[in-house]
């Protein structure tokens, strides 16, 4: 027991030391998300993008504070293992440091409870929820920021994106009239995206819905579902699932010879994971995304992130954008940057974020909504020869 006690003490001491190594004027931004488990790549890429963005800001002189001096941005990143409990512990831990704002989490199932422990309405004295601005980069399930006035998100608006996808398809494939859905039923994000977003947007664009097949996050046998899909013989098949089951379903579709005219995928599947798992079967799949290296700025961000051993995708580039948005908010709101003023600075950042109606983004201007969500420019990518290729850019 003694040894363990010592180890615990050492571990905590190490934690304290790393947070205490403050340089001459610096401000802290904390990232958090999954860096373990099957969605580990989210955290790795998100952290790399934040570090790369901070590096770029610092090289350009840092953040200007209220007194006119400049401060460097220090980034730290916490792993929440994609669990609610750890997410809550991590945000409390971050709130206990001098960190001014938290960027995360990666998982929607962490974001829900996390936003739940934040204060619901600002200045509500009766609400003892945590008062810490959170600026989410990845967790994408629709409508989450509504939970708390301290929660902000810079994630693509799936409503707009899929609306546009189906609208675009109308013109591109006028003969396609029917839609069939496949949904990973037990995962918060994919489930909501099909039932709330895709279905609704498809019918709004005059598509006939022929049915839906459901499967679970860690299912491996999709024969029955694909058979249903085959029977429906729809022109468009929309799959709202993460890469692992997306690949499983695509492989089964190949076996059974299901070849819809158009294949649509879930936003988060437009990553390298799908290509690692089933590049051949994914060929031709169309996914709307809020990032692709289509312009100079976007390419530069991608290169900078690669230097920190992360890859650029719609998630990590949202983290990148967040850093620059936060920099300008901090300068506009004239934060003091002093350790004693942390809570006041956090409030300023929150108010600054709430006021924003537009923010600069890698693909162009992001607009921001009343309920603290973003409406980001997007483009459509298609799987071609193991790469995601931009096939339509509505900008």
């Amino acid at each position, binding site marked *: 027991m003694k040894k363990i006690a010592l180890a615990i003490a050492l571990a905590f001491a190490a934690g304290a030391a790393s947070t205490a190594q403050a340089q001459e004027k610096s401000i802290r931004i904390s990232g958090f998300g999954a860096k373990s488990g099957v969605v580990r790549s989210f955290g790795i890429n998100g952290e790399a993008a934040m570090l790369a963005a901070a590096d770029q800001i610092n090289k350009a002189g840092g953040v200007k504070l209220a007194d006119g001096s400049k401060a460097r941005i220090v980034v730290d990143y916490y792993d929440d*293992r994609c669990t609610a409990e750890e997410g809550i512990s991590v945000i*409390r831990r971050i709130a206990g440091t001098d960190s001014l704002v938290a960027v995360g989490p990666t998982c929607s*199932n962490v974001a829900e409870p996390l936003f*739940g422990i934040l204060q619901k309405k600002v200045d509500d004295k*009766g609400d003892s929820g945590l008062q810490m601005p959170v600026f989410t980069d990845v967790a994408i399930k629709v409508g989450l920021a509504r939970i708390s006035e301290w929660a902000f998100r810079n994630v693509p608006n799936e409503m707009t994106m899929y609306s546009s996808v189906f609208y675009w398809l109308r013109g591109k494939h006028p003969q396609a009239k029917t839609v069939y859905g496949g949904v990973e039923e037990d995962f918060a994000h994919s489930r909501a995206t099909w039932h709330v977003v895709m279905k609704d947007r498809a019918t709004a664009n005059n598509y006939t819905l022929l049915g839906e097949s459901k499967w679970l996050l860690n299912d491996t046998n999709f024969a029955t579902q694909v058979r249903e899909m085959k029977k429906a013989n729809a022109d468009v098949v929309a799959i709202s699932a993460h890469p692992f089951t997306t690949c499983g379903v695509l492989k089964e579709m190949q076996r059974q010879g299901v070849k819809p005219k158009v294949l649509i995928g879930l936003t988060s599947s437009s990553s390298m994971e799908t290509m690692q798992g089933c590049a051949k079967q994914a060929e031709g799949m169309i996914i709307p995304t809020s990032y692709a290296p289509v312009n100079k700025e976007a390419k530069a961000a991608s290169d900078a992130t690669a230097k920190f051993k992360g890859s650029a995708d719609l998630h990590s580039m949202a983290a990148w954008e967040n850093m620059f948005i936060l920099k300008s908010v901090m300068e506009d709101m004239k934060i003091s940057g002093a350790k004693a003023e942390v809570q006041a600075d956090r409030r300023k950042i929150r108010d600054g974020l709430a006021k924003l109606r537009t923010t600069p983004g890698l693909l162009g201007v992001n607009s921001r909504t009343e309920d603290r969500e973003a409406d980001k420019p997007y483009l459509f990518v298609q799987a071609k020869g193991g790469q995601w290729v931009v096939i339509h850019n509505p900008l």
Partner: protein
Amino acid sequence: MDFYFGLAQLIGVHTLLGLSAYVVLLTGQVSLAQAGFFAIGAYVAAMLTVLAGWHLVPALGAAALTGATTACAVGFPALRVKGLMLVIATLAFGEGVRLFFFNFDYQIARGDVKVGPLGGEGFRQIRFFPENGWTTLEVMLFIWIFVLLVMALLWWLDRSRYGAVLRAVGEDELAAQSAGINLTAVKVSAITLGGAIAALGGGLYAHYATHIEHLSFGILLATFAIAYPIVGGLASVFGTLAAVLFVQGFLVEGLRDLGDWRNLLFGALIVLAMNLRPRGFLDAGNLRAIKRLFWGGGRGAP
């Protein structure tokens, strides 16, 4: 400081979960159903505070009662089997509960939003604590009042004849039967008590997390429930507490700054702990040593 209070809340909730498995383990039964009772408690307590507007305390009471009733009803058929069969049977029950909540919708309109559990989307906005202005410290104290009450209850039970009988059944069922002990009654009572404690923990968890969904109550949680008393040792309730501190305080939070190493060490250290201390951190031997340390050579209770 709030961070440590929050961590203490979580440790408290997990201690209740571990203690619920501890009671059942004393009778020699490995139950993976504790996550199921935990989930039942979480949903019942949350529905009572959010949908019915109850105060948390009676809601927790109702949760514990529901947990106990379910456990008692499950105990009779499940305890017909033992060993590995029981492990699988209880695992199946726990998964059954999870899948029930996966399919469970019960929403009512509250203003322009709907509240209540919604199948796979989970149950959002269980905000009894913040809405009533409880600080993190107050919530922590509230949770720990329950933890200490349960620990005291179990500590006292351990000194009662009932506690000795539980352990006797765990040692040798045949001999216990022949010594006049009604095995069914003892095992069912233990799992009922365990069900109540787990459901109490679940009720607190729901309000700690503010959002619950079926995926939070899976096999991993059930495994953690039995891991605490096994890693900590069955000699005393403090073993479970020690193991929760080790797992949640050290492996999860303490090692956070090790980054990637933390996750690798998690499994490896559990393997190592079981190799070094197969009977858990606190066994009868070092418990005596600790007693001697505190109370001098005198033997404790007669």
